[in-house]
């Protein structure tokens, strides 16, 4: 399976996603440049963490206008798999690929620490290999990770089983403990925690592997 990792000016977890998928999971991994429109035959596009375009204006607000995002939107509309991590999640909400918004953490501070997560649904290409109810330890590292949306959207997300991950102990004030969500077609997922940082036993946790293994297995099934 081929993962394409988008590099925006200011991305800083691009290398981590590339290393996790390419080395720790042994898949093909390639960088995609923000001003290009070619996804180079990627089977899954990753929008990585970092501070795209300095996160000026709002987190992810400028990235949504980048040329590559036009290609990513088309790819997603055609059913392609898109994973947004941290700043990538913020870009997905800013660009309308996912509902809701990510605002300043409750407490107003940047927080970096491993947090407990459970998959909110196993009915997705991103979560189906994760055992139901299993508590995963995956790090967060963000200042603006408080997920928010209006009641109607929240109810819809719940009703359609589109909450991908919930925090076991809410670190940032996210409504309904939401750490990650899916789009209606279930092929786009954004999450604030960093699964790519938990794919190597030396880094203290391998609980992030489930996200990538889900993707790899589901790609193999549907290829």
């Amino acid at each position: 399976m081929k993962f394409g990792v988008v590099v925006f000016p200011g991305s800083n977890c691009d290398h981590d996603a590339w290393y996790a998928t390419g080395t720790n999971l042994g898949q093909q991994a390639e960088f995609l440049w923000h001003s290009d429109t070619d996804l180079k035959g990627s089977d899954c596009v990753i929008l990585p963490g970092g501070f795209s375009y300095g996160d000026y204006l709002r987190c992810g607000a400028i990235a949504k206008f980048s040329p590559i995002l036009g290609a990513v939107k088309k790819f997603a509309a055609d059913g392609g798999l898109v994973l947004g991590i941290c700043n990538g999640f913020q870009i997905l909400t800013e660009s309308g690929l996912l509902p809701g918004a990510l605002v300043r953490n409750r407490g107003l501070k940047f927080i970096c620490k491993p947090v407990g997560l459970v998959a909110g649904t196993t009915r997705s290409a991103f979560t189906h290999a994760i055992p139901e109810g299993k508590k995963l330890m995956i790090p967060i590292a963000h200042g603006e990770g408080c997920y928010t949306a209006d009641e109607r959207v929240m109810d819809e997300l719940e009703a359609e089983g589109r909450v991908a991950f919930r925090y076991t102990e809410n670190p940032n004030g996210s409504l309904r403990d939401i750490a990650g969500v899916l789009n209606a077609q279930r092929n786009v997922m954004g999450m604030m925690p960093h699964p790519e940082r938990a794919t190597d036993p030396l880094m203290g946790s391998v609980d992030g592997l489930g996200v990538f293994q889900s993707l790899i297995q589901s790609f193999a099934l549907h290829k």
Partner: protein
Amino acid sequence: MSQITPEVVAAHSITPDEYERVVSILGREPNITELGIFSVMWSEHCSYKSSRVHLKKLPTKSKLVVCGPGENAGIMDIGKDAEGNDWCIAFKIESHNHPSFIEPFQGAATGVGGILRDIFTMGARPIAVMDALRFGPLDDPEVGRRNRHIIEGVVSGIAHYGNCFGVPTVGGETTFEPSYNGNPLVNVFALGVFRKDQIFYGQATGTGNPVIYVGAKTGRDGIHGATMASDEFTEESKQKRPNVQVGDPFMEKLLLEACLEAMQTGAISGIQDMGAAGLTCSTCEMGSRAGTGIEIDLAMVPQRETGMTPYEIMLSESQERMLLVAFQGREQEVLDVFKKWGLDARIVGSVMDDGMMRVRNHGEIVAEIPSRPLADEAPLYNRPFTKPARNVPMDGPAVVSKDLLADLFTLAGSQDLCSKRWIWEQYDYMVRTNTLAGPGGDAAILRVKETGRSIAMSLDGNGRYCYLDPREGTKLMVAECCRNLACVGAEPIGATNNLNFGNPQKPEIMAQIVEAIEGMAEACEFFETPITGGNVSLYNETLGDAIFPSPVMGVVGLLQTQAPVGSGFVSAGRQVYVIGGLGEAEELRMGGTQYAKQVMGAMWGLPPQLDMDFEKRVHTAVRSMVLAGAVDSAHDISDGGLAWALAECAFPAGVGVAADLDSELKPELLLYHEGPSRVVVSTGDAAQVEALAAAQGVPAMRIGTTTDGTLAIRNRGAVLIETAVAPLKEKWATALETMLHDEIHA
């Protein structure tokens, strides 16, 4: 053009003697731009004029040192990768003390920015940052509120810059003393990794080669920052806020990626960042190092504001700027890379063969100074020194506890010893997925993915010890750094230092500097950790009161990449040893301890006694235990003594210990003395631990067994301490946040 009067000269902090020298170098009177240029290059901050004669005493060489002091950062060899390529690390520590007092957030942020540029200007990708921070007490009745404001600002400034740039902030240390009330210390250490064949130096070689300016535009910010950093603080200093630069970590991240990519083209011959003294420093230093000169035209320099004078442009300390020299004819390759990253890059001049730094403005010469005398021949002062300043008695009050357990809780809730999680959780300490051991342990460990080896690093300083005895205090600090590395299994290979002191023109302060440097030289020689670079920060005084002498060390070590051994007990039922034994103590040497400070509120006497030979053998023994997999945990005994070390071992997993000691020492000393050369280990293989200690001729004293959640210490059957771990841990874990939180409701 302004008249150069004695008042103008004095306003530039240039002495009459120094002015004579300027005139003799130029063969004429300087103009105002030239005077400004001399004043920053010959400032204490840039020239080390008061410390250089003593810095020469430090060891700087070993077979692993590739580049010692004098460049942007020191470089050491860390061995080969599987393909046989040699790899290196570049590292250095630098202070941003004065700006952090005036504007804590930007002062600290630009401190991080400056040291990161020093690393990647050499071609290395930064992989770790650590910080040594000193503040005034948070609960000071008069200035506690300001101190809380400063720590909040400094921590968020470091977080802002490092997190956005994408370098993990992996550790450091933070302590509090009244002497830092008006003068906090922000020392930032950074380390980068690269291949040995990709090292770049700040040299302007090749006559006719184009000189390229890249990065942020030049503005009026930070003019005379280096001169400011070389003055004492007065009431007016708080008015110097416009002197503090504003940082843009996003710009820095672009510069990093663009510079590393441009270096790959092979079209760059030399590169240097513009830090203190900005364009002035980079042009004359690059020329001086290569024995060449540089000519630039300021009309070509990208400017943020209109109407800037040559004086302002040359002295601006606007951040995120680099100066580089390309090979003639290949400049377009370099410019193309910067364009790709959306950066402003402009050819501003060229390399000359006449050794002159020549600055034009629209063609007209506005400054013309020989590079070498300006960059490297600043006046050196062998300033007079007497005995180190010291205003505490040798004899202290009797060390008698009312309640040994209550004392332990006092330590747990103290600003110096409490958990610093509130600080380091604001730092992304994992980005780039190399952090095997992050903040909160004895030493941080970063793996180098390319080589299969890891770098361990530890920062340490102890102003109290150094105030009591600068020489011995500094030796203890080097020893502790190396001990911290031993606890994670690393072999120390090199060091960087930050020398924070008061006004060197006072003989008793100069004496502190001399004693500390000589102590450092002796210890670094002994522990085989050459100093590859560093920083000197003097004039850390406010209204005539100097800080404690505060040298800070960063020591770097190597080990094979493997799962790290932590400092905390892992499970119940394991044997606990103190490698190095219980140590010796007397009341004279209790006066600098945390017990004296937190429990007794007093200071006296001398720091603990260090036997370097014994200390080194303890390191070798502990390192061998960690590498052999013989221990579950290893943690050194330092601030707070044995009792506090055992508490810290208990906190991570909540696993306690039942310790039975056999000592002649009175309980207060036994529990809380800070004698060095001691490490607590827990093990399931007692025989191996004992054998490895015996092999180095150091005692391995078995003191007890780990337990489920109770910390108990007995001596010869008498209970000294007995408590559940949980409440002690709670106190330790929440103290800092509670103190800061109180402000909100105050």
